[in-house]
């Protein structure tokens, strides 16, 4: 059976070239970078190189990069670590953040912080006026994700960062979905903190990084041996760091051709879906969105059913339905954009990547309409028109 992986926003395969670079660091060059003997120094060099690669990819300095265990830890470090320096005050996060930011904001609220959840419009773009109006004298940090993981909408980060700075607040962006998929320059953007994760950009799982602008002071959230310039203790995940550096280097190099290619594939799939299936709406911004993100809501049927039926045809996709997420709640992102719960339940997300071709899109557009027809047949909500 043909298999098509359309779930790159969930995770990506490690690029074989990346894996080849990581491989020696498991069994052979296994040193602990804290040790001063040869094996240790070799490992330290690998960590330094990985850091330089990540820094170069973001237009940052090496010292501004702290490695973490992934995107979630980077987000936690950005919010909790940065705010630890202050007496509890106020922070702003968008209403459609990933749980790694959202739940950290809720945790901070339990610690006495007040949070404003900045609203988004129907296309998932942060309402800039409402955002600007949310700042208070005691607002210490605003955090808005670069690109949304469900609907793909890309935010005007540069403008949002500028507004935060005008109000004397720092600015963090969760760029887990954007890094490697879009050009990013931290100085051009003017962000103070930026999170990324290896396994979203053809690197390994279990590694991520936080960019911390030079003058920005952050307290550690994991305490111990004082690794990563005291910002993140724990023996360095050397193969992970090697993989992240290599993956990001390759992703940035591929961007000029890969970006436009995915945009074309994305737009073809979205148009094909909307044309071939009635009562289907596009979710997210039509153009200011991740190159590889297709997200639609299909009326009368439920997301997990679609995911499983597509899986039976060899196609891997995701859904913002409650069932598919295992959370019992439909996607807060889609609800936050003003859609009804039914519409969130009926969402299906295709996230495209390197190995996807036009033939994959053809196959999907051939297979999906009959699945929808069959599920609608079965649905007590469906009324044929």
């Amino acid at each position, binding site marked *: 059976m043909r298999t098509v992986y359309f779930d790159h926003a969930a995770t990506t395969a490690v690029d074989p070239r990346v894996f080849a670079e990581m491989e020696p660091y498991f069994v052979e060059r296994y040193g602990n970078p804290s040790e001063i003997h040869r094996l240790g120094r070799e490992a330290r060099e690998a960590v330094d190189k990985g850091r330089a690669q990540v820094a170069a990819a973001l237009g940052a300095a090496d010292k501004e990069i702290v490695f973490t265990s992934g995107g979630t830890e980077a987000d936690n470090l950005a919010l909790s670590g940065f705010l630890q320096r202050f007496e509890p005050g106020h922070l702003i996060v968008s209403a459609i953040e990933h749980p790694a930011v959202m739940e950290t904001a809720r945790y901070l609220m339990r610690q006495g912080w007040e949070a404003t959840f900045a609203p988004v419009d129907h296309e998932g773009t942060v309402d800039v006026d409402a955002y600007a109006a949310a700042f208070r004298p005691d607002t210490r940090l605003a955090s808005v994700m670069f690109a949304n993981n469900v609907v793909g909408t890309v935010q005007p980060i540069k403008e949002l960062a500028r507004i935060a700075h005008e109000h004397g607040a720092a600015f963090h962006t969760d760029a887990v979905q954007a890094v490697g998929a879009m050009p990013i320059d931290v100085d051009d953007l003017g962000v103070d903190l930026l999170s990324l994760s290896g396994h979203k950009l053809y690197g390994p799982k279990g590694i991520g990084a936080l960019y911390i602008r030079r003058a920005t002071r952050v307290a550690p959230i994991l305490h111990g041996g004082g690794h990563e310039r005291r910002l993140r203790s724990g023996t360095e995940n050397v193969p992970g760091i090697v993989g992240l550096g290599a993956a990001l280097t390759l992703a940035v190099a591929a961007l000029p051709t890969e970006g436009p290619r995915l945009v074309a594939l994305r737009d073809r799939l979205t148009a094909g879906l909307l044309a071939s299936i009635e009562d289907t709406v596009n979710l997210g911004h039509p153009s200011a969105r991740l190159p590889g993100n297709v997200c639609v809501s299909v009326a*009368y*049927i*439920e*997301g*997990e*059913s679609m995911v*499983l*039926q597509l899986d*039976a045809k060899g196609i891997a996709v995701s859904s913002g*339905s*409650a*069932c*598919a997420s*295992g959370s*019992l709640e*439909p996607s807060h992102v889609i609800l936050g954009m003003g859609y*009804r*719960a*039914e519409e969130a*339940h009926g969402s299906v997300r295709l996230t495209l990547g390197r190995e996807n071709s036009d033939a994959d899109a053809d196959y999907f557009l051939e297979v999906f309409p009959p699945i929808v027809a069959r599920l609608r*047949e*079965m*649905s*007590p*909500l469906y009324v044929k028109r």
Partner: protein
Amino acid sequence: MYTDLVMDHFSNPRNVGEVEDPDGAGQIGNPVCGDVMRMTIKVDDDRITDVKFKTFGCGAAVATSSMVTEMVMGKTLDEAAEISNRAVAEALGGLPAQKMHCSNLAADALHLAIEDYLTKAGRSGDVAKVLGKKASS
């Protein structure tokens, strides 16, 4: 996540649709919550002679619906009333924990269909006898 039997019932659901001229119909759930199940039954001599379902929901919702139709086909109303949501899940070889509550309501939908049948047949007085406390379980 799902047992093979769940996947089989999901992929090849039994008794999908609406029976014609149903003697009873029951619907449970809410699209807001992500699961809606509708059961229609034909009853002859207090025996379920036909049953069909329509379901909006996840794999577990579809599979439990399909399974319950197989379990009650040809059964007496009393026997059908005995079938609990838990029994359906067990017949499927188990369901993931997070699916036990919201997506496992097919037996309830069936009981509502039986209640509807009894009410329409002018036997409201039998509802409590046949369904006991299960009607609201």
